[in-house]
């Protein structure tokens, strides 16, 4: 056995760094805190890679399968003998994979932020929040039990809130951070309900006990049901609701585009690569339960994922804010991952979708972080978020241009870049499960290529815009992460995920299915060509098309009025018909009762205070009279 005790430092270092920078950073080393935070994360990255190497190549396999290892466990809160909440570290293929993803992207974002955030007010605050986020995200993926996961789940929510609202003097940022927090918090309520139902039926929080396919927990709650679905299915649907909120799936996606108000490195780290895939990770973590005892919930996962990916892709085609396009693209890609989980089965080749989902999560983290960081470099150079104000930037930003192109090709699924492999596995899994889902994702693949290259051509080619001052390439701290992530995007596809990350821990054989792969590459190419025709040079085609499909364009441009629907539901319905009467009741009935009691006391005490005259003999007189009166009463009634 390999000793995994050192993994505790993966959690402790960012946590200590957060406290250290948060408390001492401002006073003692405002300039140095970035380097300190980055160094800490660098150590974490090294430890994560070491863990991955040890786990995948050195640890003993039992029966050809990777084992789940509890590297560390302690009782954190002992409520009763049976009910206790533990904190621990669980190593299994997905958590180790997530370790690599999170630490890599986080490390790159730290380095990038050294350049991007240089000279900003609150530099050290930024790095302490980044450390907090890294800590909570790592804690989330390493959780041994669902309650620990819930705790860290909320912690990533709060660090996301803090980082979106980083520019807290900007009203839009404040609004966005509140929106993100409230929407995800609302979804997390479903998660909590799910946890409670689940743990009530299975009597355990522990992941190993919960997800053991041969264990007793997984068969609990299968019979008894509500509305035709079993208890387990309901609990899994509720748990999934939390995932929907965190992963910005329809209908809880509205916070993600607004979250782009945060600094761009934050968008890259939290709202593209790591935190938003927490929902996918959650489903993957509970996957044996979904697959074996709650297949109906798994259907829900698949359809929500498919719908979200199509929905987001259509919106992304009409937006002009580059960060928003990337946000919708993220939502669309996460839809892919959800769909892949939804169409997967358990064990061996059946688990192709599961493997594909994790694979896509991995590659997506690389190329989407790259896209965001590239967008950050562009914004840094042009000082605008709208690609309508850009054009012909390829001459000014050569490194950003090349890396951005690589990322776009990757997300479009062009072989042999990594996006091709992972997307192809997903499409193959969907193809064997349900042709409609496959058709949706096939269409989305084309749309993805189109909107990404629309973005690419508009920024780097297109019309020559006159800039106030010549845009210049970002400093080395910003370009190095771009290059590293570009290399990752190119080569991540060759990692044999089918050997490493599978439902039951055993590897299985996959082959490239030409039936699926060729059409998806073709539609990707078609998307690119269409974008090339429309946006390579400034043409009138986009405006003409927009005019032809006026209404559908307007709907998509306004994000299908989802924000307005939410505003209508909250302001017009919830506020007016629930909150206002409750507020009235609170102000007039509850407060009124209290005020009445208080004023009665005040008035009557004002009236009777004259009795307290300070005259000793008056008191004595009252006392004696009262005593005599009582004595007479007693005598009279005694008999």
């Amino acid at each position: 056995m390999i000793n995994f005790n050192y993994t505790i430092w993966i959690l402790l270092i960012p946590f200590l760094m957060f406290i250290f920078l948060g408390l001492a950073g401002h006073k003692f080393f405002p300039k140095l805190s970035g380097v300190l935070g980055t160094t800490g994360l660098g150590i974490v990255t090294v430890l994560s890679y070491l863990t991955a190497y040890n786990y995948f190549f050195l640890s003993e396999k039992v029966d050809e399968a990777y084992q789940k290892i509890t590297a560390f466990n302690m009782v954190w809160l002992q409520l009763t003998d049976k009910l206790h909440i533990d904190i621990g570290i669980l190593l299994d293929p997905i958590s180790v994979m997530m370790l690599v993803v999170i630490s890599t992207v986080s490390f790159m974002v730290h380095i990038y932020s050294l350049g991007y955030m240089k000279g900003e007010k609150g530099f050290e605050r930024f790095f302490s929040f980044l450390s907090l986020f890294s800590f909570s995200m790592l804690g989330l993926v390493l959780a041994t039990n669902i309650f620990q996961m819930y705790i860290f789940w909320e912690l990533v929510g709060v660090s996301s809130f803090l980082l979106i609202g980083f520019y807290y003097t900007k009203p839009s940022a404040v609004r966005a951070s509140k929106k993100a927090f409230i929407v995800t918090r609302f979804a997390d309520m479903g998660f909590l309900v799910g946890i409670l139902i689940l743990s009530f039926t299975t009597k355990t929080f522990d992941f190993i006990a919960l997800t053991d396919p041969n264990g007793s927990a997984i068969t609990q709650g299968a019979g008894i049901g509500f509305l035709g679905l079993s208890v387990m299915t309901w609990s899994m649907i509720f748990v999934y609701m939390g995932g929907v909120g965190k992963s910005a799936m329809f209908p809880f996606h509205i916070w993600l585009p607004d979250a782009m108000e945060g600094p761009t490195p934050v968008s890259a780290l939290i709202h593209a690569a790591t935190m938003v895939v927490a929902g996918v990770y959650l489903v993957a973590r509970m996957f044996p339960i979904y697959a074996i005892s709650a297949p109906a919930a798994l259907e829900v996962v698949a359809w929500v994922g498919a719908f979200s990916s199509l929905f987001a892709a259509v919106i992304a085609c009409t937006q002009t804010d580059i960060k928003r396009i990337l946000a919708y693209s993220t939502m669309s890609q996460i839809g892919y991952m959800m769909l892949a989980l939804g169409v997967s089965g358990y064990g061996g080749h059946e688990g192709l979708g599961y493997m594909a989902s994790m694979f896509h999560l991995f590659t997506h983290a690389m190329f989407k972080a790259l896209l965001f960081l590239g967008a950050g470099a562009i914004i840094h150079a042009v000082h605008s978020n709208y690609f309508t104000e850009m054009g012909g930037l390829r001459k000014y930003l050569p490194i950003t241009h090349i890396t951005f192109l690589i990322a776009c090709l990757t997300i479009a699924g062009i072989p042999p870049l990594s996006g091709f492999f992972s997307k192809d596995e997903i499409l193959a899994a969907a193809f064997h499960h349900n042709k409609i889902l496959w058709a949706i994702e096939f269409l989305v693949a084309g749309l993805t290529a189109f909107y990404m290259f629309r973005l690419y051509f508009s920024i780097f080619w297109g019309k020559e815009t006159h800039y106030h001052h010549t845009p210049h390439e970002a400093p080395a701290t910003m370009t190095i992460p771009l290059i590293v992530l570009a290399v990752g995007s190119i080569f991540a596809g060759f990692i044999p995920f089918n050997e490493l990350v599978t439902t039951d821990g055993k590897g299985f054989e996959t082959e490239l299915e030409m039936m699926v792969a060729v059409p998806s590459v073709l539609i990707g190419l078609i998307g690119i060509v269409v974008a090339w025709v429309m946006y390579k040079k400034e043409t009138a085609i986009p405006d003409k098309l927009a005019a032809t499909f006026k209404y559908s364009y307007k709907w998509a441009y306004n994000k299908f009025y989802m924000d307005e629907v939410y505003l209508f539901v909250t302001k017009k319905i919830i506020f007016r018909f629930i909150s206002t009467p409750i507020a009235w009741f609170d102000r007039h009935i509850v407060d009124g009762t209290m005020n009445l009691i208080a004023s009665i006391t005040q008035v009557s005490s004002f009236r009777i205070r004259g009795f307290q005259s300070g005259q000793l003999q008056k008191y004595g007189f009252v006392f004696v009279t009262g005593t005599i009166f009582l004595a007479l009463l007693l005598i009279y009634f005694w008999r």
Partner: protein
Amino acid sequence: MNSGIPLQYFLILATIMFFAGIYGFLTRRNLITILMSVELILNSVNINFLAFNRYLYPHKLEGMFFSIFVIAVAASEAAVAIAIIINIYRRFTTINVEDVNEMKF
């Protein structure tokens, strides 16, 4: 047992003393006199104790003991009360109870 004086006489005496004490307590203005009235009340109670003990339960001694206890308490109470009165005098330069009315609303 039969000493000639009926029980009622003792009770009448005690009642007169008690109400004299109450009257003095309520009407006198001098704190020392008020204290004396309180002593009068206590002594009337003592008389009651002793009389009842003597006439109703001649073989028991609880009444006696209780009146001794009351005398002891009365003595210490007088000491404390006089100490308080002296302090009041030092502060207000009067022992008229009507002038000592700081403790009010």
